[in-house]
């Protein structure tokens, strides 16, 4: 069964450094998402992406965050200047359609640790 893959599985970065988290969504999916989950807390929506542009973003997704689909297969999340509070699991998800009943398919996440 097709899977969403994320790399790296664990990223350790100094505060203030830039970090790029990578995702390869399921190949025929059209909608892509990034979520964040701070340890022990709920899954939080960051951003959705469709047709090479952001379709929705949350208040968490400020100017420090950006997303890109550079080559038609990878979907990346960049944090420009990381803060301690950015430490969390970051999940990528993809979905065939936005409307209707299609579920989201998640990767296993990147654990981001900011020192």
């Amino acid at each position: 069964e097709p899977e969403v893959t994320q790399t790296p599985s664990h990223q350790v970065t100094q505060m203030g450094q830039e970090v790029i988290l990578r995702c390869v969504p399921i190949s025929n999916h059209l909608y892509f998402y990034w979520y964040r989950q701070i340890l022990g807390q709920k899954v939080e929506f960051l951003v959705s992406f469709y047709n090479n542009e952001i379709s929705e973003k949350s208040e968490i997704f400020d100017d420090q965050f950006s997303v890109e689909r550079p080559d038609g297969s990878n979907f990346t999340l960049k944090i420009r200047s990381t803060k301690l509070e950015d430490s969390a699991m970051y999940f990528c998800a993809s979905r065939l359609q936005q409307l209707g009943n299609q579920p989201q398919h998640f990767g296993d996440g990147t654990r981001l640790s900011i020192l």
Partner: protein
Amino acid sequence: SQKIEQNSEALNIQEGKTATLTCNYTNYSPAYLQWYRQDPGRGPVFLLLIRENEKEKRKERLKVTFDTTLKQSLFHITASQPADSATYLCALGGMDSNYQLIWGAGTKLIIKP
């Protein structure tokens, strides 16, 4: 603002019994509700979806109900097994959120042998 509540405490169930998890919501009229399972260190995995015009949905040992009057969904696992131990998340979708999923915090289910 939209709010989803799931059992905040972990649910401990004896193996073989039925586990029932609750998802309540306010300030929202979902078109559908989804249930996901999340294991430690893993991403959520889709289990079941139920639409606003459906009362009940079943899949093997799983059953989901949806009461739009009570604004509540119940998720049942019958004949529970230790392997069912995980965190279960409910998520709502609909026009109110432009079809972005709104997530509950999850309920941790522990099935004791």
